[in-house]
Each structure stands twice: as C-alpha cells, then as structure tokens.
C-alpha cells in the first residue's frame, strides 16, 4: 500500500530524512515515533506531497510520487485522508461543511453528502456539533472533526500527525480507539506521534525515527 524507497529530504543543506526505506501493508496500522525534530511530520507530508522528496521514490497505492504529474496531485490527495497536527479547519464554515468539503471536492452529490457526513461525525461521537463553528469547539472536539473529515471519503490511507498532541489523556485514548475501529474496518493507518502511551502494548508496528534515519522497528 505504501512504499518508501531510499527517500531523502533536505532543508537548506540540512538532512531531515536520509535513505528512508519501509513498506506499510494494506490494512496495517503503523506508528512513526521519535523525538521532536526527528522528521515524523516531514515523512507524513511527503506522502501527500505537501513536501517533495529530494531523492528516492514513494508509492501510495497506484501513485508513483517521483513521476507524478502536477495535475495528478489532487487525485493522490483524495486517496489519502490526513489528520493535520494544526487541524486545518476553515473557521468561517460549520463542522458539517468542513467535513462535507472533502466530499464536494470529489463531486459527491449533496443528497449523499448529508448521510456520509452524518455517519462520519457519528463515528467520532460529535454528530450533535454538526452546526457548530470550529472556533466554538474544544481542542479535542476540533481533533474529532479533523478525523471525521479524513475518514468521510473512505480514503485508501489515513495519515495522522500527532493526533493527540493537543488532547488530555482521556480524550487521547478515545481518539486512538476511533483509529483502531477504523483499522478494524480495513483502513490503512499511519500515525506519527511522540506519545509512547498510544502504542504501548498494542502489538502494532512502530518505526523509530531519529536524526532523519529509521533507528529501529518494534512491535508496540
């Protein structure tokens, strides 16, 4: 499903990621962990081309990112649902419209959008917040809206960048439970986090990043 082949990324001659090679199988849940500045966020950004790799190739489903035309980038992004660390919610529209936006971009009919959004919000237990605006929500609630948006269009892959970074421990456990439910339904999920509590004892695959290299791999 996801393949990294000798991928490197540099910022101003500084190595952020060096010769990263790994594969994530379909239906797998993988954690990327490491200290701040290890390159976790950059690694996720490479997967939806918010950043481009300087060396190597990445394959997501049928998309070979090294040879991907600019006009194909939107279609790659549609096959990846991203839970952004900084949420990236549009504050001028409601929770419903924020989640619906990803479906409207895909040209889904309005009649179907209503049901899909409603189901996505139900999965993350915030259906009652449908008409609220993001600015009136707590950090945890905003995080759930972002997850609902990421899963609404049933993408091939869900990428989550520090999905519990702004949340209290109880809410974090709730959010991780949501991801596990989605994974149980067949979703391939990659979560970047420095919070070891999220994968401890889970048995999921954990890739450790340090100084731009994969420092090790273990089962959580």
């Amino acid at each position, binding site marked *: 499903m996801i393949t990294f082949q000798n991928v490197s990324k540099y910022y101003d001659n500084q190595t952020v990621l060096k010769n990263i090679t790994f594969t994530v199988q379909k239906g797998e849940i993988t954690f990327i962990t490491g200290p701040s500045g290890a390159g976790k966020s950059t690694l996720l950004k490479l997967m*939806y081309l*918010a950043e481009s790799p300087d060396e190597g190739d990445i394959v997501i489903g049928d998309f070979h990112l090294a040879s991907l035309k600019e*006009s194909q980038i*939107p*279609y*790659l*992004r*549609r096959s990846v649902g*991203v839970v*952004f660390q900084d949420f*990236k*919610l*549009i504050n*001028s529209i409601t929770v419903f419209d924020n989640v619906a*936006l*990803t479906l*409207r*971009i*895909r*040209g*889904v*009919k*309005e009649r179907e959008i209503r049901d899909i959004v409603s189901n996505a919000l139900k999965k993350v237990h915030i259906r009652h917040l449908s008409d609220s605006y993001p600015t009136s929500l707590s950090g945890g609630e905003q995080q759930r809206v972002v997850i609902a*948006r990421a899963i609404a269009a049933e993408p091939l892959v869900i990428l989550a960048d520090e999905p519990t970074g702004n949340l209290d421990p109880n809410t974090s456990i709730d959010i991780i439970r949501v991801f596990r439910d989605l994974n149980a339904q067949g979703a391939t999920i990659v979560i970047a986090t420095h919070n070891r509590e999220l994968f401890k004892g889970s048995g999921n695959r954990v890739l450790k990043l340090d100084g731009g290299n994969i420092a090790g791999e273990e089962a959580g």
Partner: protein
Amino acid sequence: MTFSYSFKSAFKSLCREKWINLLSILTVASSLLIITLTAFFLYNVEIIANSLPERFSIVSYLKDGLSSEDTQVIIDTIKRRADIAGLKYISKEDALKELQHTLKDTGYILEGLTENPLSSSIEIKLKKDFVTPSSAKHVAGEIKKIEGIDEVYYGEKIADAIHLLRRSMQNMSVIIFLTISSGVVFVTYSTVKILFYRRKQEIEIIKLLGATKGFLRMPFLIEGGSIGFFGGLIGIIGALLFYFAVTYRLSMVIPMLKTLLFPFEILVVLPLIGIIFGIIGSLIAIGRLKL
C-alpha cells in the same frame, strides 16, 4: 454538484466581503454608464450625420443657348451614373422665379434687368455612400467633362465636415470603449486578487484536501462575473435616470433635447458586457496566481 458549490461559495464571499465587492460593483457600474453615454452620443451623431447627405447636392450650370434636346441628353447622361440618387432640372425662368421668391421685399433689385442673367442648372443628389469628399470631387469632375456643362459647384466643406465628424466620433468612441473596458477589467482583476489573498489560508486547506485548479478557480470566476453583472444592472439604472433627466427635465429648458434618441438595445447587453469583462479580469487575476 461542484458547480453548485462554486456558486454558493462565490455568493457567500460576495456577502462576506461586501464592502470591497460593493465598491467594485459601483466602479464597474460607473464605467459601464460612461460606455452607455458614449453610445448614446455616437448614436445621435450618427443619426444627424446620416440625415446630412440628404441635404448635400452638386449643382451643375448649363451653358446658355442649349436646345431642349441637348439639355435632355445631358440629363440622361447624368441619370445613367450609378452614384446618383436623383436630379432636378431648374430652367433659367424657374431660377429667376426662385430668386424673386427668395428676395421677397427686396425684389425690386431685379426690376432693372432687361434679360434673365441666370443659367439653367441641374441639382444632383448623390447616393448616401458617395457623400464623401473624394467621391463628391470625383463626380463633380466627371460631370464637368460632359458637353454643355458650364460650371459645377458642390458643398465641399459640408462633405468634409460630415466625413470628419463621423470619423472622429468613431475614433473617439473606440478610444473611450477600450479605455473604460480596460478599467473595468482592471477593477475586477484587482478585486479578485485581493479576495484570493484574503482567502489564501482557506485555499491552501482546500488544496491539501485534493481540490483541482478548476475547483479552486471556479468561485473566483463566478465572483468576478457577478461583480460585472451587478455593475451592469446598476449601470442600467444610471442610464435610465440619465435618459429621463434629459428627455423630461432638461428638455423643458432646451426643447431640442426632445429630439434625441436613446439606444435602449444597449441596456439589454450591459449586464452581459459586465459579466464578460468581470470574467476576463478574474481569469487574468487567477491565471497569474500560483495555485
């Protein structure tokens, strides 16, 4: 569906950024009003200019002593010309009578004359398209060559004036139209560019969610077109107010203004012109932006 989203998004933005949009709409309306008034001015000048050729004529004086057969030959020769709309033969006697009628109370001037000093003449009207300085000169030259014609006179200055008036009005209208059109395009261009930068963060998010360039551009095209459309509608209101002010209020003071005609056809196309200019401005704006 994407289209209906683009419309909703554009109209939401029109309402959200109401002041900048209102300012642009009013600027577009004023510009389109100037175009309408230019069209109004040109329309009336064309009507006046079109009526002037009817008054234009070439007068050919015949030599004295021509027989009626010779005169008829000359008339027939002139009539055969393709550039002639019509002619009128004025005999010596008719010319004198007309002069007496013109002089009225001062007709005694002619009492001392022992014989009629006036010549017979033929007044020639040219077809509308031939009332140009070069055509009139050419026709007058050809007629002068006909056997039996003594002198030929034509209103050279009138022909020149009509030609000059038409040409300068057309040139002026083209210049005004191009200048104002560029202005309207620039206004929508600037507005759309400002609106784009105000929504830059939102656009970045939508891009990351998988929006194509077309999806991102469509609301801005609709917004630019809408600015032009509403500008056109307000332009119509302005033009109608101008028309009623001229025909009802000002014509009370200057009755001549009542004869002016208004090209109402332009009012129908004004919003359409606005939409076209608005979309062109938006296309330039978003075409130059990095999406």
